[in-house]
């Protein structure tokens, strides 16, 4: 394993260990995401019938909101004891530190999605699970893209006084393409007829977004973190 991936793994393992001890980020993100889904269920499910096509949108709205919360907290944790400075002091590739943090957020959001999916499927009678591989690919591509941008912005804003306000203001406009693609791709799964070509188109769009923004983040993380 090269030094780069070794450092990313060390940071990821540390983040997961800290989270397993406190469950602080996972529990708050999940609680928030489930609350969002329940609010929408009250609004969009009438007499046991859900509004057509709402499920896909609600899934990604819940993921985006929960993700913002998780992104803010994960860097707030590094700021509180100034451990981010210790990470930056290490003789390690700083992009590897970014990758470790990114993988931690992705893992956290994927677990949240695994809990949300059956809940939304039940409340909105959405057949997410008829094409499992497509579902997994769509969720992974969308989550990676959203977290790639979010992790970079959360790291950038860690010393900003209004970071909690600034993060969604900066993140949502940039993340709109991947969220829209995620909603559209997920909607193909719950449509009466599964359109493979359409699903492939939206998935390709998300993959392209992921490549562009992960590359951009790897390139810009080190200069952005050096004051």
């Amino acid at each position, binding site marked *: 394993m090269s030094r780069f991936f070794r450092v990313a793994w060390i940071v990821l393992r*540390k983040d997961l260990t800290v989270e397993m001890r406190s469950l602080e980020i996972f529990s708050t993100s999940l609680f928030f995401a489930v609350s969002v889904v329940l609010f929408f269920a009250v609004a969009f499910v009438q007499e046991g019938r859900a509004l057509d096509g709402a499920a896909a949108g609600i899934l990604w709205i819940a993921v985006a909101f929960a993700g913002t919360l998780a992104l803010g907290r994960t860097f707030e944790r590094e700021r509180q004891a100034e451990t981010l400075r210790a990470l930056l*002091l290490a003789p390690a590739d700083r992009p590897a530190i970014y990758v470790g943090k990114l993988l931690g957020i992705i893992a956290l959001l994927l677990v949240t999605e695994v809990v949300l999916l059956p809940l939304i499927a039940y409340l909105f009678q959405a057949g997410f699970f008829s094409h499992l591989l497509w579902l997994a690919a769509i969720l992974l591509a969308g989550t990676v893209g959203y977290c790639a941008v979010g992790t970079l912005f959360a790291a950038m804003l860690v010393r900003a006084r209004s970071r909690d306000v600034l993060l969604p203001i900066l993140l949502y406009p940039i993340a709109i393409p991947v969220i829209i693609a995620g909603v559209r791709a997920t909607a193909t799964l719950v449509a009466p007829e599964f359109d493979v070509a359409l699903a492939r188109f939206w998935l390709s769009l998300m993959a392209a977004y992921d490549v562009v923004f992960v590359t951009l983040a790897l390139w810009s993380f080190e200069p952005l973190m050096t*004051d």
Partner: protein
Amino acid sequence: MTVAGFDHLAVSDLSRHFGRRRALSNVTFQATAGSILGLLGPNGAGKSTLISMLATLLKPTSGTIRYGSLATIQGAADMTGASASALRGAIGMLGHDLYLYPELTAAENLTFFAALYGAADPRTDALRALERARLADRAHDPVGSFSRGMRQRVALERALIHGPRLVLLDEPFTGLDDRSVAALTARLRELRGEGRIILLATHDLDLAEGLFDQAVFIRDGRMVELATQPQALRTLYQSVMGQPQA
């Protein structure tokens, strides 16, 4: 760990501005291997800014930092990439905050940092460091449950776990009891004996008495005096700075 060519630290005309505010202005000094240099001055004098620049966490606005023949930082030039990464491997820093994860145990914290610094056997290095800190019996307790003095000892070992040539300490005596202060000063003398270059910023003059080989006095971002083998620090401080130490 020995770092070839890193036998002294030379700071020349170093300045740092934050917008229009001048945090540090034209600071010049040298520190050699096996010495302790004190950075003395009131709060807000620019000591932490200087330490952050020496640690490569902050770019200078102008001036030069020469890490022996290992590396040179010139003005606001790019500090990214492999050479900066190698330089950071020769620097250990203990800041105001302790840079430890309270949820992790002392052993887990030190193992994490040893691994991050590329140690071949991080776990063994961490346990040895805890023995040096006389905390081997608390290795598996969360750092969040430690007293300030115990956390400070773990944090010092965290800063030293990779055997850095340059050791930067920012107010290391804060919140320590007499016994912890004595242990820390003994450890610093030990590090000096090992040939490290140690820079220590403090405004605790009584605790630092007799510890320094050189002392740099800083006021309002300007270096006002460089004293060699300083004695009676409190009196010297008053005569140099023109005011008693707060």
